[in-house]
């Protein structure tokens, strides 16, 4: 990401350090943007919407870590929202491959429960969020269709 934009968003020097640490130790090691967005959403409390990361908070403090997690979450959200449908299908494939679940099981759960809906950051444009959710829904249908075709092939 552009360093100038990041610095502008993270005015607090501790938040900037927490952000760099988050990328170096965690996000950089997670394959795929969708995987990263799901991880970041999992650090957020379902009820309060507050982000928590015990390890980072011990080094940089709650406010700095909250800013860093929020910024990273929003950046990845925008990257995914700007992706074409084809790129998003590739992201979904990476996510499925890196998951411990069987692809069939995961596809069935994601298509039915749509758990990706809770992975959207709080403070983003509603229309952009709808676009990403719609593209994820389409991407899952593309993968399901490909799997069904593979299964019926002799």
């Amino acid at each position: 990401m552009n360093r100038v934009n990041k610095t502008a968003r993270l005015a607090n020097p501790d938040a900037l350090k927490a952000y760099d640490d988050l990328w170096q130790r965690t996000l950089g090691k997670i394959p795929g943007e969708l995987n990263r967005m799901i991880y970041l959403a999992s650090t957020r409390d379902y009820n309060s919407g507050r982000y928590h990361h015990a390890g980072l908070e011990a080094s940089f403090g709650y406010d700095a870590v909250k800013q860093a997690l929020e910024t990273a979450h929003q950046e990845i959200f925008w990257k995914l929202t700007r992706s074409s449908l084809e790129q998003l299908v590739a992201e979904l494939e990476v996510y499925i491959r890196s998951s411990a679940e069987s692809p069939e099981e995961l596809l069935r759960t994601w298509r039915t429960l749509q758990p990706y809906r809770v992975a959207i950051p709080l403070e983003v444009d509603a229309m952009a969020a709808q676009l990403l959710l719609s593209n994820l829904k389409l991407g899952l249908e593309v993968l399901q269709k490909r799997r069904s075709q593979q299964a019926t092939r002799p």
Partner: protein
Amino acid sequence: MNLVILLFVLAAVLMWASLHFLRAKDRLPVGEKAEVGLSNGQAELTAGGDLPFLGDAIFSEADWDFIRGEHSPVLTELFREERRGLAARWLDKSAERIRAIREDHLRNSRYSQDLDVLAELKLLALFVYLITLCRCMLLVVRVAEPTTPRALALHFEKMANRLGRQQGAALPPLPVEELPRSRP
């Protein structure tokens, strides 16, 4: 009655002609589009709902080609449904934004002492044009393929941005102390 039908047909022909003209004019080579996307960076992080890439993404020809490449009627129909819904919401939101700019301008112009009549007429024409365009696109979205109004949508975004700029240039916002304290 015949005249009304003739006028309607004429309007439809004009709309389709402008659509095809704009489509040919605004189409970018794939590489160029990708470069534009990358250079825009993280502008959205600070944007408050006015996102320049949304129209482009909703009416994306690349997505439509990708879905057609899957050769599945079910997927094609789902894509049509999803994009029609998104396009309709995007157009509603855009029309709302234009009306808000116009109302804001009217409110400010009531207290202005040196109105430029020509600039005001230009703004009014642009406002009427944009709202009409918005309604035409809503109609096209319902009856045509999801990417058909793409050229119109990109043109619409450009003109909507111009409305914001012209409104600002024609009439700078009033200082707070000059605004009325209460309204009946």
